[in-house]
């Protein structure tokens, strides 16, 4: 007992002294890390402080203390606006479609690629499939608009050539087609890239499993179903959970670039809504309220997804 009471008052001092000795020893490490930590603080954490704007009648140019506090006024306005519910519907609709397609198609494509026996062909197709990932959405949107256009667009030409339609479809002017166009564009752009992880997982499956299946007389399709798919099951689950976490943060890039005034009712996502009605009209407080809503829902979704994941696999991804 005595020994301990004797020791306690000494410890903080010793620890402190120790800290500073090591600090000077590690000064180069601190010099290499702290400037960037400060940097991350300014550009990643300071915007969170900006959330206070949603509870103020924010006027640019005034200092923080001169702003008028208004409580939940802007959130009430937000929840009474029809456009908000429209934007929420579009965000959820497009994310869900994107989630499903973006989840299923890369798995199918990875399995197909894995079944290509000609190595040079496999490598060529892989290289080609990465290409759209590396071009910007500006380029992608331009190309997609061109392919879907009514005069000489490849898709309309193809459908006309096959006599599936009698006159060109105005793809970019039909609101109810917009979600599908965004989803298809996403699949076109990112499928190749998203197969990388699945292909890596497939290559980790031991060849002896395939040999055993062959000896048992399994056809190629049966091998896919009983060896390949179970082999990449964990990877599939992890990637699914991660994408559920990102469900609502689909942003606005595709919608901004592919959309136009004719399809606005279907193209306006929450972020685009914040951009048009918050920033575009100088209503910073209102826009911030939209951003906060968006972030909070994302975090909730992430935790829910992680909770489900934990239940299934007893592991956490956060």
């Amino acid at each position, binding site marked *: 007992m005595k020994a301990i009471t004797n020791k306690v008052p000494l410890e903080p001092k010793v620890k402190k002294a120790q800290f500073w000795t090591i600090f000077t020893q590690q000064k180069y490490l601190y010099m290499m890390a702290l400037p960037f930590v400060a940097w991350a603080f300014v*550009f*990643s954490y300071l*915007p969170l402080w900006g959330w206070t704007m949603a509870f103020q009648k924010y006027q640019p140019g005034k200092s923080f203390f001169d702003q008028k506090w208004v409580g939940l006024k802007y959130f009430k306005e937000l929840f009474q606006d029809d456009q908000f519910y429209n934007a929420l519907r579009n965000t959820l609709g497009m994310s869900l479609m994107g989630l499903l397609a973006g989840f299923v198609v890369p798995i199918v494509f990875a399995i197909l690629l894995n079944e290509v026996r000609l190595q040079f062909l496999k490598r060529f197709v892989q290289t080609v499939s990465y290409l759209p990932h590396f071009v910007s959405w500006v380029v992608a949107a331009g190309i997609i608009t061109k392919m879907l256009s009514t005069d000489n667009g490849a898709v309309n030409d193809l459908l006309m050539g096959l006599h599936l339609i009698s006159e060109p479809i105005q793809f970019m002017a039909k609101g109810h087609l917009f979600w599908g166009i965004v989803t298809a564009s996403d699949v076109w752009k990112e499928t190749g890239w998203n197969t990388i992880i699945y292909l890596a997982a497939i290559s980790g499956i031991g060849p002896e499993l395939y040999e055993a299946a062959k000896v048992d007389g399994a056809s190629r399709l049966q091998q896919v179903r009983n060896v390949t798919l179970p082999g990449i099951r964990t990877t599939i689950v992890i990637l699914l959970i991660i994408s559920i976490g990102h469900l609502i943060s689909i942003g606005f890039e595709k919608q901004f670039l592919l959309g136009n005034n004719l399809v606005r009712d279907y193209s306006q996502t929450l972020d685009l809504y914040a951009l048009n009605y918050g920033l575009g009209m100088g209503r910073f407080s209102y826009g911030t309220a939209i*951003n906060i809503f968006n972030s909070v829902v994302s975090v909730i979704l992430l935790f829910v997804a992680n909770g489900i994941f934990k239940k299934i696999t007893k592991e956490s991804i956060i």
Partner: protein
Amino acid sequence: MKIKKISGTPWSDHIFDLVVYFAITVVTIATLYPFLNVLAISFNDSTDSVKGGITIFPRVFTFKNYETIFAYSGLMTGLKISVLRTIIGTLLGLISASMLAFTLSRVEFQARKFVSTFLALTMYVSGGLIPFYILIKNLDMIGTFGVYVLPSLVSAFNVFIIRSFIDGLPYALQESAKLDGANDFTIYWRIILPLTKPALATIALFLAVGQWNAWFDTYLFNGSKDYLTTLQFELMKVIQSTTTNAESFRGRNMTQVMAQISPESVKMAITIVVTVPILVVYPFLQRYFIKGMTLGAVKS
């Protein structure tokens, strides 16, 4: 019976192969054709293109589309700024990510846990568009080149990729350098950096592509500054001005260009100019980014 099954191929496998090769062909065409089509139109005479029917070869070959767009001053400025931001942004990003990764790989570093958590959180928290805009405004960065390279300087994802690479290097190298009296910065500069080249190549590709492809920061912060325009932004203006009726987007300079050749040809030619640098680079770095992606996936 059993022997037959092992040596011979069941008929279902032939159908399976057929389906696989058919699907692969369709995907390849669907991916490649749009690019080839755009390329063909960009080299085709503008008035002839309007008639339609161009597939993957130009019908009336010409360089005129390219001559016309390069005569437009906005495009040259855009090219210059895009190249500048790609080089500067990539270099700064590489320095920050590799330095942070190095400090995080040092087990004895006191602030290691703090720095690591602090960085990891940036991947999950986001203030949103408008608080970010106000921040940039308060920092007086609107209408500056800095807005292209400074906000994205530190990326936690890149740090963690390089760090897991450094963790794979033998620690004895650092130990022996330390015994020789090298300080931590020298170890980073002389030993770690040269050995981390494969990881740095991956990150450099990600950073460079991100910088080259960025357009929204120009739109948001520098849209009215002619001398800070980027290629992607110029392309975006052309695409938006013809798909919607936003006449305000179209500067007078661009209207004159479009009077000479059709907007369609302008779009296609600029698209190719913007895409070619990426097309030239990415196939050669394939080995690196595949490694980087799988490494990143394992870690996160």
